[in-house]
């Protein structure tokens, strides 16, 4: 996908997808003139197959699928350095958010599953417990990702120092949280929100 010949035409350029990204992120990809400042300052460029400027470039060419197929968006640390320094005020961090959401909605064709998994578990945690329950989060992640021993050595240290709790905290607002999740799902079903 990365190096495949790119056909450009009104049909192959998915302008609708780009418009969605622009609506979600509230920023225009056309404003970018490819100076590369975002990629220059990005702490994660080295981990990405498409550095940030190229992500925008692919969007300019209507090549959302190429972006989603890669793992770049999942390697964005959301540090906002790009957005802060962009000479054209292209909110790249918001574009990354939008891309991740669209990938998430499409159940992610991305190669990067760990970050997706972590995000999924994190949000599930909110829905279930209201607050983060780190022990469960970590354990569930290790189970599902198959990295059974990951950070195992940290567990006892954290527990012994009270940095990780064995049980979750109770929260009176749980029904309200559930309602928020439900209402958002409802709105999306009705097409009132992206």
């Amino acid at each position, binding site marked *: 996908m*990365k*190096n*495949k*010949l*790119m*056909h*450009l*035409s*009104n049909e192959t*350029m998915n302008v609708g997808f780009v418009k969605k990204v622009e609506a979600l992120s509230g920023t*225009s990809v*056309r*404003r970018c*003139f*490819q100076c590369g400042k975002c990629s220059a300052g990005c702490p994660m460029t080295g981990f990405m197959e*498409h550095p940030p*400027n*190229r992500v925008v*470039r*692919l969007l*300019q*060419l209507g*090549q959302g699928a190429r972006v989603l197929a890669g793992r770049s968006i999942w390697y964005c640390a959301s540090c906002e350095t790009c957005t802060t320094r962009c000479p054209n005020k292209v909110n790249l961090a918001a574009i990354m958010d939008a891309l991740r959401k669209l990938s998430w909605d499409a159940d992610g064709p991305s190669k990067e599953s760990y970050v997706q998994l972590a995000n999924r578990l994190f949000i599930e945690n909110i829905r279930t417990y209201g607050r983060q329950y780190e022990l469960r989060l970590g354990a569930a992640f290790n189970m599902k990702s198959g990295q059974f021993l990951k950070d195992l050595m940290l567990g006892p240290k954290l527990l012994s120092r009270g940095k990780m709790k064995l049980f979750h905290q109770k929260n009176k607002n749980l029904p309200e949280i559930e309602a928020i999740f439900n209402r958002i799902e409802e709105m999306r079903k009705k097409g009132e929100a992206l």
Partner: protein
Amino acid sequence: MSRIGVFVCHCGENISRTVDVERVAKEAGEIPGVAYSCDYKYMCSDPGQNLLKKAVAEHNLDGALVAACSPRMHEKTFRKAASAAGLNPYLCEMGNIREHCSWVHEDREEATAKASDIVKFMVERVKKGKSLAPITVPVTKKALIIGGGIAGIQAALDIADAGHQVVMVEREPSIGGHMAQLSETFPTLDCSQCIMTPKMVDVANHPNITLYTYAEIEKVDGYIGNFQVTVRKKARSVDESKCTGCGVCMTKCPKKKIPNDFDQGHGMRTAIYVPFPQAVPNTPVIDRQNCTMFQSGKCGVCQKVCGPGAVDFEQQDTLTVESVGAIVVATGFKLYSIERKPEESAIQGYGEFGYGTIPDIIDGMTFERLASASGPTGGRILRPSDGKEPKQVVFIQCVGSRAREKGISYCSKVCCMYTAKHTMLYHHKVHDGQAYVFYMDARTPGKGYDEFWRRAVEEEEAVYIRGMVSRMYQRGDKIVVMGSDTLVGVQVEIEADLVVMATAVQAQDGADLLAQKLGISYDKYNFYSEAHAKLKPVECATAGIYLAGACQGPKDIPDTVSQASAAAAKVMTLFAKDQLERDPVVAKVNEKYCVGCLACKKVCPYGAVEEREIRDRQGNLVKVVANVNPGVCGGCGTCQATCPSKSVELDGYTDEQIMAMIESL
């Protein structure tokens, strides 16, 4: 014995840091013929110049040498000072002990020795120098403008408005040039013809402007202030004095399918034609190559229908000689065409783009005509092959330009902007179309230019692709464009309906021949050379000839108009004087020794050498000698080095002076 003064300058510390100026002055004082020598902190300052003036008076000096900076810097200054002190300015010389000595050497001993040597041989030069008087020549206050495009029009109007006579010579049947062909102009998108045609009419109606269209420069003689220009008026076959411009001839002409150059060959015209409706003058011309009357002797319809009887098949080319004092060259440019070209083309051709065989690959000027309301499609973007509206248009920049190994290394300067404009025009006219632009760099310096380009990208939704096109070929009714996007690092393929190439801006055909007639220099691309890239951007090295517009190098309209007005200002500066003074560094023939071999005449680049017959009182020819016209002589001295009998001498650089210098070494 000469009485020469030597003045050694410290130039602050610039010279004295590495050169022992006191020692140089002292040693200079010991040279035979030097009557006075001193050193001073700043010779070019007021007190420094006064020092020179005072020394000339007090020591009765008959020559002065200022050892200081380069003569290119201050020769004028010191000659003026010397002149004020009553010394002939040409007996004041400079020894360059700064640029050629103190700044380039570190060793104080060596530098001082060298400075002393420089003073020594320059003193010899002054000793053998002669008093010279500047040459004066009269000025004919009439200007010739070659080329009737926007550059020529602007220069002509400026000069004519200042009250001077102007002769304008245009090769085509109408003035207007390329600007008349354009649809809209960047960065304001105003209509080119709307701003151009009023100026064309102004030229035609101006009482101070004599307009020759369908005419070319045949020959140029003379020199600054006094040029004689022979203009060839090509036979129009229509008498301009009789023609009323009614146009009946054109409607009746049976030959109607001749591709019109003005529309880049995409519109049709008749054999008797005006290139475009707003032409100035509105007098038709018969294209003899395509006229049935001229080719087979049968037809003559135009003559029959012409009420005033203006059509004249017998008309011949005529030659007119105009005397002018200054010449503005404004011959403009042509666009490179990718068609396979004869050997002399500067560009090696673009076989990968099909050598012009694919009809829907057009150049930028053709797109201008397609987009122009007065163009062959009435302003609709329709492709040449089948007249369909293209939905995918690919623009390619830098075709021919910036391709050193293909022949042209320069940037054509206007393409980035006009391509951005094209994408906008296209988007305005074809709403559901998509424009793609392949580019290497977007070069948009200029007021409001970058903003304009960004507007094309951000608002008019042109897809700019940073990369070049490797190849194009026809597939069905599409053109497959194989390019790359270097920002992504992938190959890109687009099936285009129309491809517009921003081909290189080149010098006009025949620019080199005209330059040879004018005696001005041109670069390897046939663009005319200015005298100095920064400080004399409108002057030619040949005095009295000025440049305006794209004949000097690719230029957009604002730059062209600025330069044209600048050239006009230079002409007016010249015309502000009745007489011209120039340096008397000219060759003189010693008729006594001249044997009349005229080897000098063969090598003179200015044509300044003429034959002169010497007759005795009875009128018998004694001998033929060479004679140098001081007004024309440029002062290169090639004649002197060539002369076998050493009977030509260049004032200021005589053999005697140079030998004295060499011998002092």
